[in-house]
């Protein structure tokens, strides 16, 4: 099995075994209640904040797994671009799931703000853990 497909398969397997992905799916589903049933315009801003926190916690929950993967990728000879691809893919998946409650009943500006914040928070957190792994390995 070549590196790219093998690494992708292992990353998906490990990621699916982590807590983060299930936590964010659960909380996003629960948060759907608010834009559907609570008709209060002030809830928009809070949902954006909670969405960011959700994404942050989803990454934090599996931070050790991500670190192990970065380490494993490095010892298997992965290039920095592969690692960056992993970071961007993971943060995109988390961001998209966390955006589900935001997209209902919230204006385009709110969705874009949330998208930007979530992707930057998750990417930077993953990148920081990668930097740590690179520094000590």
């Amino acid at each position, binding site marked *: 099995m070549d590196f790219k497909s093998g690494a992708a398969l*292992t990353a998906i397997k490990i990621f699916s075994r982590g807590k983060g992905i299930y936590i964010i799916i659960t909380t996003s589903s629960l948060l759907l*209640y608010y834009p559907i049933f609570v008709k209060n315009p002030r809830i928009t801003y809070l949902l954006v904040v909670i969405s960011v926190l959700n994404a942050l916690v989803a990454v*934090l*929950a599996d931070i050790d797994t991500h670190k192990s993967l970065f380490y494993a990728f490095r010892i298997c000879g992965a290039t920095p671009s592969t690692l960056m691809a992993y970071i961007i893919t993971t943060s995109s998946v988390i961001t998209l799931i966390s955006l589900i409650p935001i997209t209902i009943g919230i204006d385009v500006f709110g969705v874009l703000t949330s998208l930007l914040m979530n992707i930057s928070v998750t990417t930077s957190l993953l990148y920081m853990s990668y930097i740590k792994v690179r520094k000590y390995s």
Partner: protein
Amino acid sequence: MMLIYVIVLIITITGLIKILKSPLHEVKEEVVEFRKDITSNIIIIYKVLSDFMKSPILLTSLLILSTSLLLSAISAQSSLSVMSMDVGRTGTYAIYIGFKDLTPLDEFSQLLNISEFRDVKFYIRYILGSKLELLVNDEVVSIYALVGVPVNYTLDGVVVGDDVLVIGGGKYVNTTLRVGNNSYMITSVNPKVVEDSRIFYEIPLLPVQAYLGTKPITVPADKVLITTTSNVIKLLHLDKYSVTDVVIGLKDGLGSYDVEVFRGLLEGYRPTIMVLKDNVLEVLSSYGLPTKESLLSSLISALISSIVLSVTFIALQPKVRSVYDRLSILGFHSWSFTTLLTMFVAVVFLVLGVIMLVIINHLFGIYSTINSAITFITSYITIIIFINKKVFNLSTTEAVSVPTSTKFNLIVRGVDACHTLEYISNLLRSDEFFELRDLDVKCDGGGFLHASCRFKGVWGIGLDLDLFVTRHGEDNLELSFNISMWSIEELSEKQLESILRLLNSKLIGGIRVWTLSQVQL
């Protein structure tokens, strides 16, 4: 004064003599005791807690709790509580709004669209701060209250107009009275008629001073001046058109009447609102009740908060472990460590929760506070139990998975070390199960070989091989193999051993065949 100087001098001289008499090389023995007092414990506790206080994860958890409480507060809903009673058939459909004080019409019209209704009557029932003395027919009449009624309101056959003042009692018939620059016609009516007049159901026309049980005590009719509402506003020198009571008549019945239209008014002014539907009188209370949806949203907030907080604290686990490892060296027990951290988090969360509830009560009101309190209590209990049992409850023993490895020795006869290492290198290069990634060979009498191989069947599994070759006796070589497996995924020991056996059999079998062929040659 002199005496003081003498005493100071004596003390100084005595001190000097003592110093001079004492031996120069005397060393005072000081017993330094190891401090086992409470200070050391406090320092330890401070160090543990300061480590957590600086943790960004703790700050994140506080932010999550605050946001959840706000979410719960914002999603709070309440329904107006209504008390209904049967008052017998009245044939009237009307709404009564009674303010506690004079309220400008343009202000409360923003909360209740008065213009939607056709039959609206405005009243003023106002008790004066100081009595008003009128000189009528050379007689001083003291007035304690003013009542404003709509134009053409009839009292005992007298039609109240803008130039008419009515007083209950006395014997004034169209007597002229000047108030400021305006002249009015003052007319007396039967005080009994005035006292019995009602503006809505049991609400008297006269201002109520107090209640005796449920019976209202009104200002005496002869002490009240009744005129039109606009006249009262002029007499009181008010800038805006203000009223104290509004009666909305609905001739065609109430139709699809909804109490929720009065919510803004009730929350803004807390007036008395009553709705008369023929025989049913509904009294609207300014105190509502939380709805089922509101309670559901508070529970969902609590659930979200509990889940997210639990995960946040799980992320704190490695830090907890490292702090505990350091403290356990100092003799800190695990139970005291667990208790200390749980107490700390409990206190921090409690303080934050109370502050947030106070802020929410100030900003959003009591219903939001109830909702947030439900969220807070539920998530607080859940998270404290969770962290106490799962995060801070550290076991003194830790299970560490041992990597699968094997060590074995082979003794071969009649072969050269360098040739052997070269042959093993070729074996590894040509292996059908493993791909050689790294090879390092040293050969000088004895020898050393290090190889890193990757398993071809599954990605992310490999092994490291270390081989030492030493001379053993005259013609023998001792090969010491040390092979350890590694895997990115947490595979079972059995699986790894199966993969390891593939290499073992290759090496042992290959070397056996090769040595036999070498001996035969």
